């Protein structure tokens, strides 16, 4: 979710002059998108033998990871700043920074408490909700419920409910009713990524119903009449008609 709430960025090797926060964002994104940054991959293919390129890429990743761990160390400082006057507008910014840039840092728990206590009327909590879907913070569910109840903004309430449903779904909890409520009550609300919460919830529901249109077909594994094994996934890349039939 981190990638969803940050501005466009430069690749990490080219950001040496940027701010620390910018650096952290770039590094975090580099980690998240590692392996799909085409310029590096193309360079590696063009210039180095594969084994060497792999080792170089691994070293580069390790360096990026270490730096991103250092960057996560900024969360306590942003939190401390906010604690000076938690109700101040700049404190809101600092607290949102903690939750959106370091969503699994231990400081998130306290940041959420302060956000709910002092800033529940802020529209910025919509961003916070999205970051909490994958956060490891134990206070995330409680905070999402509180934001949903206390925010005066329909857009924030909708994103809180959506994030709560998505988060519970990730952990295997039943959240079908919540997705349905998102569709009914907040279907037209923006999901912050150019779509609506309604469409996102519909898609989530479709994936939950294994035989619905839009769901990925379950694997089929078995034998034909001659006892030859074959699988449905052997036919990926083709349009497939499945026909459950009998000659009766």
């Amino acid at each position, binding site marked *: 979710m981190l990638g969803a709430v940050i501005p466009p960025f430069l690749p990490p090797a080219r950001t040496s002059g940027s701010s620390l926060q910018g650096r952290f964002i770039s590094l975090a994104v580099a980690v998240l998108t590692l392996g799909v940054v085409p310029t590096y991959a193309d360079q590696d293919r063009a210039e180095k033998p594969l084994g060497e390129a792999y080792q170089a890429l691994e070293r580069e990743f390790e360096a990026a990871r270490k730096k991103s761990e250092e960057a996560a160390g900024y969360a306590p400082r942003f939190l401390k700043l906010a604690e000076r006057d938690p109700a101040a507008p700049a404190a809101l910014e600092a607290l949102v920074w903690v939750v959106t840039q370091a969503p699994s840092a231990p400081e998130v728990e306290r940041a959420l408490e302060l956000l709910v206590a002092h800033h529940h009327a802020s529209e910025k909590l919509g961003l916070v909700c999205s970051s909490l879907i994958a956060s490891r913070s134990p206070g995330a569910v409680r905070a999402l419920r509180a934001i949903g109840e206390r925010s005066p903004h329909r857009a924030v309430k909708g994103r809180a409910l959506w994030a709560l449903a998505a988060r519970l779904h990730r952990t295997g909890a039943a959240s079908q009713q919540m997705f349905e409520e998102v569709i009914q009550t907040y279907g037209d609300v923006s999901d912050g990524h150019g779509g609506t919460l309604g469409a996102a919830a519909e898609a989530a529901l479709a994936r939950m119903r294994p*035989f*619905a*249109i*839009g*769901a*990925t*077909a*379950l694997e*089929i594994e*078995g*034998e*034909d*009449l001659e006892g030859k094994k*074959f699988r*449905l*996934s052997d*036919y*990926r*890349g*083709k*349009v*497939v*008609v*499945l*026909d*459950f*039939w*009998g*000659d*009766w």
Partner: protein
Amino acid sequence: MYPHERSLVKRMEGKPFALLGINSDPKAALRRAMAREKITWRSWWDGGRTGGPIATRWNVSSWPTTYVLDAQGVIRYKGVREQDMDNAVDTLIAEMERAGK
């Protein structure tokens, strides 16, 4: 079903398409049906009964039941027969051809 499916398979020759059956007959009956109806497409043999493992896993309780999947294995149509099945397949093939260009 058979004549329509035969013509669909024939019409789709050379295209990225497969018709796959999941058959609930005993083996001897399936063998007879395939010969009699000139069935060229493959079927999984689902244990010779309607409560076979594949049908059970797929929650199938009425026959025939059909699904049309796109090239990514996503269910795009269900319960389509005859002309509707043709339209569904044509739509998905056209989608692939557009994406390939």
